[in-house]
């Protein structure tokens, strides 16, 4: 269609129409028509999501195109339009072209990303997700499959079970897609042989059984000719089972989470007016005003006052799994995003050590002792991979065990059993009990790079329930701060070697001490002489060096001390991990900033000279990167300001730490 351009708006839409009724019901009433009530004229059908997976070139897109054509679900003219486009480009028409939307997909005859198509049977509406079969696009297959309730898995009758047939099935089992129909496609190329069909059925059933998957059906089809899709055709009269369309409505809707114990992970706390609204989506169970709940991790209890709603005439009486709600509470408690509301008698597990089965999609392999970020529901924390126990070949399911002195890594598209140590405690459930709280993603370099599931058997559950909880003494931080008249805090000086960290730290300690404050300075070099003498300068060792320094600093701050720490600490991720561990507002990140040239010129320890001569490897600023803090509490330009000026600014920052209970006498 060529674009027709109008010279003026159509007459009936040229001018504004007086004072229009913008509300649909008022608009209808103004027409003198029947009043619309907002109630639906006919009951709505449910929408059911099905993903189509399988090895590349086993006919997924052709199958979906055929399914649409044969159930009369294509827009008018779509078939003719695509056929015409093919003719114009001298290409043979393929049903797959109905789906492959991107130029690259059409040219290479390969699906790159998932496509969703809607169609209906008399019973319900379906969204068909066509997932790519090429190994390279596995992350797109995962994206598509994770939102599905059931799957069609296609196998080419000639080629039989191939790599992606197995890998996709393994991923389906990890993603929690348990309903499955296997379609043995391209039966025409195997002379419609019943024996061949049964041979594939036998082989693949055995494989699926090892994954705990039991398909509803195996169906022999020829997508290209539409055999056993909607109609049967006359080539496979031996087939007495259902056609695809007949089998579709046999899928049942997904797990019901309403009757499980409440799990409401907080997304945010809104304070627009005098209310504090705790917002989040109920992942399992239900909630009512008056319910006693506990937030984990943190073990804070509260009573639900009301379920807030905008525009509702009467307050909500209850809400169930799947609803995005906002609670107000009877008590004034401090909880933040990530905390999971649960019944006090049926809380989730809380731990800092997670045993998980993961699938890895990252470009870089997953490595032991490296730091990643973990997100579970709305919880987020940094974490370290403490062990990779075994790597499972996602095609053969053979596993490689970890051996003494040889650390494994998990390459892209592999599956593994690992142990993760998190910086903050994490609340979770077993994947088979409450799936939304039993799965997580790992981020590498801020990109989602893998997913994992947590399975807890009875024995493990017992251990988790009896697990040691942090011991708290009878004197808390607040009491110490009241007595000291100043906050306990961590002043973290980061910057290049020679930027002036130690000079400032020394002067700051002196001044605070003279003022009669509890203060202590730890220098990074001193830690490396003792506590961290087992660590080198690799990326992993540096991260561990900072983690330990951070833990020490945290304890000092908790004991009411102003702890000054001077440490190059070049990585944002490591510093932020420490920030998370320190009481909110009591971590003062000070970026001691001086241009590299100035630092190199100062070179108080003669290190730059050695680094430039190649005598020192991994030297920050020369042969290793320094990441400037994103949002430090303070930035000191030591090349422009005097030591006195710098110290005064840090003191001011310490004074300005907010406190509801104490007026600092600092």
């Amino acid at each position, binding site marked *: *269609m*060529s*674009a027709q*351009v*109008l010279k003026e*708006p*159509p007459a*009936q*839409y040229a001018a*504004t*129409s007086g004072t*229009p*009724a*913008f*509300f*649909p019901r008022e*608009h*209808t009433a103004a*027409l003198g*028509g*029947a009043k*619309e009530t*907002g109630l*639906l*004229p006919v009951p*709505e059908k*449910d929408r059911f999501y099905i993903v189509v997976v399988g090895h590349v070139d086993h006919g997924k897109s052709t199958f979906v195109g055929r399914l649409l054509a044969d159930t009369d679900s294509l*827009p*008018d003219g779509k078939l003719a339009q695509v056929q015409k486009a093919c003719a114009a480009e001298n290409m043979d028409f393929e049903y797959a072209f109905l*789906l492959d939307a*991107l130029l690259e997909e059409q040219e290479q005859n390969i699906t*790159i*990303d998932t*496509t*969703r*198509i809607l169609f209906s049977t008399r019973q319900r*509406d379906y*969204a068909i997700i066509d997932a790519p079969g090429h190994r390279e696009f596995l992350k*797109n297959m995962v*994206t598509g499959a994770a939102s599905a309730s059931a799957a069609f898995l296609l196998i080419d009758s000639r080629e039989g079970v191939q790599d992606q047939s197995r890998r996709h099935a393994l991923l389906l089992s990890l*993603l929690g897609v348990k309903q499955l129909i296997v379609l043995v496609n391209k039966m025409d190329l195997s002379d419609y042989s019943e024996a061949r069909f049964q041979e594939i059925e036998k082989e693949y059933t055995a494989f699926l059984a090892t994954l705990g998957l039991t398909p509803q059906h195996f169906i022999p089809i020829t997508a290209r000719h539409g055999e056993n899709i909607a109609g049967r055709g006359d080539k496979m009269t031996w087939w007495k089972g259902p056609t695809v369309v007949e089998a579709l409505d046999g899928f049942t809707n997904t797990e019901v989470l309403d009757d499980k114990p409440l799990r409401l992970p907080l*997304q945010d706390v*809104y304070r*627009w007016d005098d209310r504090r609204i705790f*917002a989040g*989506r109920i992942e399992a169970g239900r909630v009512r005003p008056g319910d006693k709940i506990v937030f984990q991790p943190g073990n804070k209890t509260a009573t639900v006052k009301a379920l*807030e*709603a*905008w*525009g509702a005439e009467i307050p909500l009486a209850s809400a169930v799994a*799947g*609803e*995005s709600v906002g609670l107000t509470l009877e008590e004034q408690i401090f909880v933040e995003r990530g905390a999971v509301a649960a019944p006090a008698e049926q809380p989730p597990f809380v731990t800092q050590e997670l045993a998980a089965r993961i699938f890895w*999609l990252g470009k870089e392999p997953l490595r032991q002792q490296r730091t990643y970020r973990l*997100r579970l529901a709305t919880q987020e924390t940094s974490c370290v991979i403490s062990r990779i126990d075994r790597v499972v070949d996602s095609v053969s399911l053979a596993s490689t065990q970890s051996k003494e002195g040889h650390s494994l890594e998990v390459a892209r598209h592999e599956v593994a059993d690992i142990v993760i140590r998190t910086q903050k405690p994490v609340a979770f459930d077993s994947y088979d009990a409450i799936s*939304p709280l039993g799965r997580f993603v790992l981020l590498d370099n*801020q*990109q*989602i790079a893998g*997913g994992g599931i947590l399975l807890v058997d009875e024995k493990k559950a017992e251990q988790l329930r009896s697990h040691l909880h942090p011991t708290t003494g009878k004197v808390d931080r607040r009491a110490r701060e009241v007595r000291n008249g100043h906050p306990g805090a961590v002043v973290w000086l980061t910057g290049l070697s020679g930027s002036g960290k130690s000079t400032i730290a020394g002067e700051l300690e002196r001044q605070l001490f003279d003022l009669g404050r509890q203060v202590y300075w730890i220098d990074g070099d001193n830690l490396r002489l003792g506590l961290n003498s087992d660590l080198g300068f690799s990326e992993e060792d540096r991260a561990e060096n900072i983690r330990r320094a951070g833990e020490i600093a945290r304890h000092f701050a908790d004991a009411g001390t102003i702890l000054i720490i001077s440490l190059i600490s070049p990585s944002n991720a490591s510093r932020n991990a420490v920030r998370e561990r320190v009481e909110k507002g009591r971590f003062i990140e000070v970026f001691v900033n001086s241009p590299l040239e100035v630092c190199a010129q100062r070179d108080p320890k003669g290190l730059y000279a050695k680094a430039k001569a190649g005598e020192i490897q991994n030297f920050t600023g020369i042969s290793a990167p320094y990441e400037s803090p994103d949002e430090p509490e303070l930035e000191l330009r030591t090349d422009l300001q005097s030591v006195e000026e710098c110290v005064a600014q840090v003191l001011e920052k310490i004074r300005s730490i907010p406190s509801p209970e104490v007026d600092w006498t600092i």
Partner: protein
Amino acid sequence: MDHLTKLEQQSIFIFREAYHYFKNIAMPWSMGKDSNVLIWLARKAFYGKIPFPLLHIDTTFEFPEMYQFREWAKEYHDIDLIVRVNDEAVARGVNYENYDPVTVTHELKTVALQRAISEFKWQALITGIRRDEDSTRAKERYFSPRNAEFEWDYKDQPPEFWNQFTSSVRPGEHVRVQPLLDWTELDIWLYIRRENIPIPGLYFAREGKRFRSLGCWPITHPVPSEARTVDDIIEELRHTKTSERSGRAQDHHERNAMQKLRAKGFM
């Protein structure tokens, strides 16, 4: 929970995730039906007050009634509204008489949007696109990154599953957050009906024609229709087999026009 409520609740979840992850965020508002459903959902998500600005990219070719609706809705929803026009292109004489629709759409919409993003340094934009509108939109994510040149790298999109989203941007980049991705045109109308959401009157038939999708008046054509109420529209959509954007000329200017427009930053 019925199908419509499921969609609504998921969209609210997306809104809240977006607002958590991106402090500097805005919502383009075309004033069309989807855009007004977005406002409604935002007000539900945040209990009445939308905590970020809305942006209207004014092409200067909006229907007169759209401007009227804009002023009314701004007050009614208490919207913090930013309006931007690509004045430079208008002054250069970029219009539908002199240029093809793809060029004009790119200049007056996409370029104006790019400038607004540079001006306000938004990290994320909440858009009303739906998978069922166009086959390239079917391949979108809820959180879909755009690079500094505003390009959509559809060949290498980050994975998105279990309601975990790409939430980081480098300077100059932004993320398109798309809460209506799973909605269909029919869902939108069923929801407008259920909630009585205010919309411009152009969607209703006058003298045998109505607009199914609204854009610049020189290239937006009404379709034959007798649907004068929301009920009529729902009934019409249950039986139609023509596509929603068939009246939008820029989509059909050349083969894969939408893909080309969208790769350069168009919604």
